[in-house]
């Protein structure tokens, strides 16, 4: 049986091409293939193309997995020729799966003979070791081959990235998200925070809390059709964990805290978040969220609502700008003022644009009148 096979090799696609990458296999081991039928897709730095089967028969084994780049001439797969294929197809249909054709051929077996350590590593990393190209004696798959394969494999997302991704997609799929922007003059906030040794965030947070007390429709959750306003302002603060993602610890009963008190809580929660030291209660029960990525200079964003809340406030960079102000004598003039753009993403299912604008205006009013 072993003599009647045809190798499928990486073709020469132009004179300067020395290697190619398998993008996808159109056939799997055990599948019947016709001569010139597409067996896989390959890619070079110049073109992507379908690779036709060089002979009819049954695909006996795949030697180069998807994503692997190999030199021109490398055997990609073996086809058991048509004149012998009847029996092999019969075997495959009797016992479906990749095991069947392998167990019927002599040379394929030698590739399938895996050492204990190769089997263990492959299993731990969820790799099909029979698809790894072996560099050992007679093409045996060695430990270093399977380790190299793992290294080449693109990184899978970390658990926290997957979780963030799921939450963000679910929010966009769930909420009717709109974003409204409003400029605010930060002159008083800037002056105040400098004398008190604070950042702008806790002051804006304090103004936001007061605005939420004024317009409690935004201090709420919407879960399906269940819309619930909250007495307390449980304020979520987005904390960046660098490459490890983002987490939103919650300051419960934030309405009871001054700007200084908020500053202390924000600092403590951020420290614990980065030390991976938050407990489940620290991230539960939020009714509104503030995100503050402006330290890198970004001016506007469209934040995604932290479900099941109904709105999120985005504080971006504070930038000095020439603005028209009206003096006490009623005369307009151009002044240099620290400005920021407040962005509010809100859920159109729970409220309408007028209320969102009213809320932003309430925050702005407090920011611009800030004294303390």
């Amino acid at each position: 049986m072993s003599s009647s096979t045809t190798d499928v090799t990486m073709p020469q696609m132009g004179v300067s091409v020395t290697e190619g990458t398998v993008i996808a296999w159109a056939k799997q081991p055990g599948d019947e293939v016709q001569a010139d039928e597409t067996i896989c897709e390959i890619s070079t730095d110049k073109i992507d193309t379908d690779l036709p089967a060089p002979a009819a028969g049954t695909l006996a084994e795949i030697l180069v997995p998807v994503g692997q780049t190999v030199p021109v001439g490398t055997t990609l797969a073996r086809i058991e020729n048509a004149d012998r294929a009847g029996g092999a197809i019969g075997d495959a249909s009797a016992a479906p799966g990749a095991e069947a054709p392998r167990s019927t051929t002599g040379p394929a077996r030698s590739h399938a003979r895996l050492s204990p350590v190769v089997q263990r590593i492959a299993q731990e990393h969820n790799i099909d070791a029979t698809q790894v190209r072996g560099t050992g004696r007679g093409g045996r798959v060695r430990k270093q081959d399977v380790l190299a394969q793992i290294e080449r494999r693109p990184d899978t997302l970390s658990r926290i990235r997957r979780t963030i991704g799921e939450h963000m997609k679910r929010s966009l799929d769930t909420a009717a998200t709109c974003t409204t922007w409003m400029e605010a003059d930060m002159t008083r906030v800037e002056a105040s925070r400098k004398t008190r040794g604070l950042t702008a965030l806790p002051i804006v947070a304090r103004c936001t809390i007061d605005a939420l007390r004024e317009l409690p429709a935004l201090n709420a959750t919407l879960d399906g059709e269940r819309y619930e306003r909250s007495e307390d302002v449980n304020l979520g603060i987005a904390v960046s964990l660098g490459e490890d993602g983002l987490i939103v610890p919650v300051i419960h009963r934030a309405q009871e805290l001054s700007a200084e008190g908020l500053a202390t809580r924000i600092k403590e929660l951020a420290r614990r978040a980065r030390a991976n030291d938050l407990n489940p209660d620290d991230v539960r029960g939020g009714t509104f969220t503030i995100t503050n990525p402006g330290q890198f200079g970004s001016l506007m964003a469209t934040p995604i609502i932290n479900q099941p809340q109904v709105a999120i406030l985005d504080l971006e960079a504070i930038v000095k700008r020439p603005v028209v102000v009206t003096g006490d004598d009623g005369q307009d003039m151009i002044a240099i003022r620290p400005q920021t753009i407040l962005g509010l993403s809100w859920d159109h299912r729970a409220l309408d644009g007028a209320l969102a604008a009213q809320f932003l205006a309430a925050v702005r009013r407090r920011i611009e009148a800030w004294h303390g």
Partner: protein
Amino acid sequence: MSELTYLQAISDGLRDEMRADERVFVLGEDVGVFGGAFKVTDGMVEEFGAGRVMDTPLAEAGIIGAAVGAAVVGLRPVCEMQFADFIACGFDQLVNVAGKMHYRQGLAVPMVVRLPSGGGFSGGPFHSQNPEAWFMHAPGLKVVAPSTPEDAKGLLIAAIRDPNPVVYLEHKKLYRSIKGEVPDGTYETPMTARTAREGTDLTVIAYGAMVHVALEATQDLDASVEVLDLRSLVPLDEHAILTSVAKTSKVLVLDEANQTCAAGAQVAALIAEHAFEDLDGPVRRIATPDIPIPFSPSLEQAVLPSVERVREACRELLDY
């Protein structure tokens, strides 16, 4: 620190420990006035007197038997076998009396039997053997085999201080061919394995003179080869062996002793049983075939594990 040969390091350890502990004494054939067949005890009778450096008749059973009695009553005897091969004559005293004394009577037997062992110098079948496996197989005995001057001194002192009978194998070929820095004063080398060279692709496990064969055979290979020096065969440092195999996944085990049931066979069995899922190739062994050691230099070189054979086996394993 002083630079000493392997033989000087053994003498140094014995002398320092005799100075430190007056219970320690030496007995054996020609160890006194003659200073020992290999001069390990040279000058000791002058320093410590004939009462602590005792010449005995040619009777290994008597030497070991006397040592057992002395150890039981609280002394620390160090017996010298003139050649390791001759210990066969004292087998019963060592294996049945010393080895089982604690089990039967609850008595400690803190004694050492020094075995000048190994071949490679045309000593023939009676003067070239490596009998360590006989004693690994006998419960109640410890078996150590240093490969460097520093360990030769430290393991001898550790053996003297150990409450069990210890078989101490000193390889004759290393006596004057190996030199190294040796700490002054008394110190103990632990009865655990030593990583003679770190590596990631293959582990060569050896002890005694074979450590040097392993190092030489693998120094020019285009691979990162770890060399593990067992130092002690009983107790066997299973943790060090399994840790190294987990790292490299390929193993070559060397013995200068005859192949069947050699120390390396025990090591190979340990790996097969406890490191199966770490292996990326067969556990290979190289040892002396199961024949007496020939007198003829060329025949002797043909049977002892050579640098070339070890290098070839390493290449095969690395390519596997």
